[in-house]
């Protein structure tokens, strides 16, 4: 793919780099990577016109595993970096990825404000209810009674509900997916990217090393039985009362995406005129 003309159709394989992931075998992130590249092949945007931005953690390793431009930033700040990139370069497709620790703990503040700001980009969180890279501490989506070394007996603190927070903060597209359903996930990702404004997808992605019991998830997930709504109140009710394993697009709103009016007519002399005596 080094010549000037691109092939007629890009396959998922064209979006995957040669770099071999270091995730534990069995990790849900492998299928998420497959779903992301599959979604990209549905969208058919050349990889060099897309950017994948991430923070720190197992899930944040994804950028280098794609053939898109990648930015592997610092812990929790992926949304900030992605926002800067998209606002400065609205012509690019920007996808932000990371895990639940990176995104909801240290990244929590940026998460709120990215939803508010509604910049046209897609945020994919691979949620495994644990900090994998640092060997198994509770994350904001971990159950309060999950025993671990840093919080023996569990944190005792209620788990975070990212979809509700996203909705309440103004995200324009809210969905839940599961790594064990690569096709469904790929479809949702493609939809999310196409949907204007800030699109948020929570992908349940089991951690085989620190949460092996999450293998059960494949028996707990189920597709949402109703269509996505564009009524935030209705979506809020649904999401707040679901069992956490309801898959699909749960909210697709019509807020106009972030835009700043830019009038490019002024010259430097125009600007400096105010100082002239």
């Amino acid at each position: 793919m080094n010549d000037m003309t691109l092939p007629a159709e890009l396959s998922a394989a064209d979006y995957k780099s040669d770099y071999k992931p270091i995730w534990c075998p069995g990790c849900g992130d492998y299928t998420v990577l497959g779903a992301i590249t599959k979604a990209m092949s549905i969208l058919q945007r050349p990889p060099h016109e897309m950017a994948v931005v991430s923070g720190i953690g197992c899930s944040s390793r994804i950028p280098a595993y794609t053939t898109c431009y990648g930015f592997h930033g610092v812990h929790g700040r992926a949304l900030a970096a992605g926002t800067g990139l998209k606002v400065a370069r609205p012509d690019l497709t920007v996808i932000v990825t990371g895990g639940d620790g990176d995104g909801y703990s240290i990244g929590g503040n940026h998460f709120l404000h990215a939803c508010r700001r509604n910049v046209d980009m897609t945020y994919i969180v691979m949620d495994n209810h644990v900090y994998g890279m640092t060997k198994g501490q509770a994350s904001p989506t971990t159950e309060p009674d999950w025993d671990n070394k840093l919080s023996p007996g569990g944190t005792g603190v209620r788990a975070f509900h990212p979809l509700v927070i996203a909705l309440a903060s103004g995200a324009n597209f809210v969905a839940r997916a599961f790594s064990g359903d690569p096709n469904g996930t790929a479809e949702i990702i493609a939809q999310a990217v196409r949907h204007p404004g800030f699109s948020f997808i929570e992908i349940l992605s089991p951690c085989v090393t620190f949460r092996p019991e999450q293998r059960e998830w494949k028996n707990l997930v189920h597709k949402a039985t109703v269509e996505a709504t564009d009524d935030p109140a209705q979506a809020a009710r649904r999401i707040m009362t679901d069992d956490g394993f309801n898959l699909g697009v749960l909210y697709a709103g019509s807020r106009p995406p972030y835009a700043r009016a830019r009038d490019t007519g002024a010259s430097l002399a125009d600007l400096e005129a105010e100082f002239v005596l």
Partner: protein
Amino acid sequence: MQPPPPSTTPSQGAGAARTFSVAIAGSGGAGVMTAGSLLLDAAAHAGLYGLMVRTSGPQIRGGEAGALLRFGPEPLTTLDDRFDLLLAIDWQNLHRFADEIPLGPDSLVVGDADAGEAPDVFRAQGARLHMLPLKKAAKDAGGAWVNMIALGFAGALAGIPDSDLEAALRKSWTRGEATLAVNLAGMQRGIAYARDVQGAHAAPLRPPGAAPAGRWLISGNEAAGCGAIRAGVRFVAAYPITPATELLEWMAPALARVGGTLLQAEDELASVNMIIGASYGGVPSLTATAGPGLALMAEAIGLSVSAEVPIVVVDVMRGGPSTGIPAKSEQSDLSFAVDGLPGDAPRLVLAPTDIGDCLQTTEWAVQLAEALQAPAIVLSDQFMGQSRAVIDRPQHEVKPAQRLVAEANTPNYLRYRDTPSGISPMAVPGTPGNVYTADGLTHTERGIPSSQAGDHRKQLDKRERKLALYDYGSRWADVEGSGELAVITFGSTTGAVREALARAAAHGVRIKLVALRLIAPLQEAALAQALEGVRQVLVVEQNHGGQLLRYLRSRFDLPGRPSGLHQPGPLPLRPGELCDAFVDWAATHQPQEETA
């Protein structure tokens, strides 16, 4: 004929104590870390000192890994120049560690006869190769784990008694008698192989046979946590980060047992501000992090300075800058620790010199922070933090930190009173009569925000004075030896430097050592005294920019033309290369030489 360079004199020559170095390596379920830990445990119980360093590939499970150990009759704070034994259960990707497992003509490399050839890089160093049917032997022993063969072999070759090896295995076993018997058999097979190799030669080590009372087996991270609790820390806010997480994980249950609390925070901004809150409430508080986390904590450390609320931040340094090399050691946060805050913000910076010292120095940091009502940064590092060693238990009396606290209803109480010592009594919430508001804003003596020149100057002087006038005693550094040349260092390089200097001394090269423990405020008078008669100094450190050298030169008139030996991570500085460098350096500065 020239005598061989001092660095290549094996550590067992010239009166130095003989040590034995073993590397056990393998991948995917081989259990090399377990074997290494058991070996260390056995050696410790046999009365030896030991040190174990771990290294591994980027995979979370199944990756290539190495347990790097050293044993001897005296406390060990550095790895040797070469390994006497490399036992590879398999060769998967081991060449990636070749830098960390240096070998020589006297080394023995043992591999599995059925696992293919040893990679060139290991064979090229002149070591003897010896192939054993490791996997097969494990199977023949009734299905033992292969690492048991490794344990037996390495232990017996080193001279660790069979009984201690067996005891270590028994103690650790949680999986039933039948499997224990099988694995003991595997271990015995390994011992038998070692006897074959050893033949009539005596084992290199002669352990006393039992651990004398008063020794501990501990990691640097655990030691730091323990030191903090000794000094009275009862509140910790934690955010996981490699390589500091284990310090926090050790403290979580430990604190609870002594009535303290550890709270997991959402990020480092939260954890540092939480400990400031707790300390404002009168409870000695601490957090632990690494470079990226320390950077996030900077603003709050400034708040601790300005509001005079004591905190301790342990920075377990790793490869930098930015995300850097998270699982490897480096000493590159020093500049940031001593200078990296906006405003004029004097603070305490300490650095333990080895694993055992992580306890004393963290303890001291808490005591100083509390006494001086200031933040203290403890510069530990990944090498000390995540390695385990046999140490002499701390001998000193446990003295919890003492904060100067205002008595109830102090007449005309001024929180930030401009006292001669610079330390003003702190009112603890709940104490009647002394209500005040702590503030990061510049303030009057009463604590009311002020932009007046006089107030600002007064508080800046006060905070500088309180650190400058304090009597830190003799622990600010280890000053050893004599001569007109001196090496200055800090942190984990101290061990390698010390050993290198001992080797150089054995060849008639006399160099003084100053291993700093209190880095800021710099003890200028004491340093001047330590360097009396010294004409040239060499500053040794594990970072790219020579951060300690730059710091010393900016604060102090070092004699002669100070030079630096600085090398970034991830590889440790070793005694042999240091000794060579010291000897060369000494040769260019013969006594009585007139400086240009």
